[in-house]
């Protein structure tokens, strides 16, 4: 049996790669994909803990994370399409009208 800490480290690494994507990429769609990656890393933690603590709660929580992730992807992509119509670009740097 693989120890719990292996799963936690793997999920920490995947989460960090997602954070890295959000930090360095300049493409809104890839930004959203990196966020999906981070959500999946957290899901992996939930499932690992649910297995090692023998509780179903973690797996149910993953359902809710999936529902929220689906809603987030839908709204995020709709906003991206709306912004792209006005600016013709996916660069988040081009959208700083409200920046002080």
């Amino acid at each position, binding site marked *: 049996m693989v120890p719990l800490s292996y799963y936690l480290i793997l999920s920490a690494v995947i*989460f960090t790669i997602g954070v890295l994507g959000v930090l360095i990429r300049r493409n809104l769609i890839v930004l959203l994909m990196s966020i999906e990656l981070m959500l999946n890393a957290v899901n992996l933690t939930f499932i690992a803990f649910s297995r090692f603590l023998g509780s179903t709660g973690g797996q149910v929580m993953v359902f809710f994370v999936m529902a929220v992730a689906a809603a987030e992807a839908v709204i995020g992509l*709709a906003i991206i399409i709306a912004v792209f119509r006005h600016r013709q670009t996916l660069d988040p740097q081009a959208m700083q009208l409200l920046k002080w």
Partner: protein
Amino acid sequence: MTGSEILFFILAGLLAIAALLVVFQRNVVHCAMALVAALFLIAILFLTLQAPMVGVLQILVYAGAIMVLFLFVIMFLNPTTLEARHGLWRRFGAIMALLLAGALVAVTTNDNPPADPVAATELFGSPEALAQSLFTEFVLPFEIASVLLLVAMVGAVVLGKRER
């Protein structure tokens, strides 16, 4: 090293490669394909953790529905210009990510997690057990999630509508 450990390390290595490809490839479609691979690998990891129901849903909902949505938007917008590279900011981002990775690994290995897994019963992770939990203990969050999905649906339609 046991068989399950070897399987874990193979899956973990492939998953890390797929995640890095998501972040470092320049073509958005290639990024999406790498993300599909990563989601499949995570689904297989779910299977090894005795969560078959969640694994199947992961493939159906994530690798199926959400990724189709992503690809649809990529094809719809068809962004032709590749993004510009910013050297200094990339280095800063890499340093911050390394710090975060160090902190996360330190935190997760610091505590003494339960070494011996609880003997999982036959029902563990089955649709029956999940439904039992979902419709008794978590029934209020379940209803709230349905409202959230409705709001997201209406919001997407309103946002996507061409204004006149």
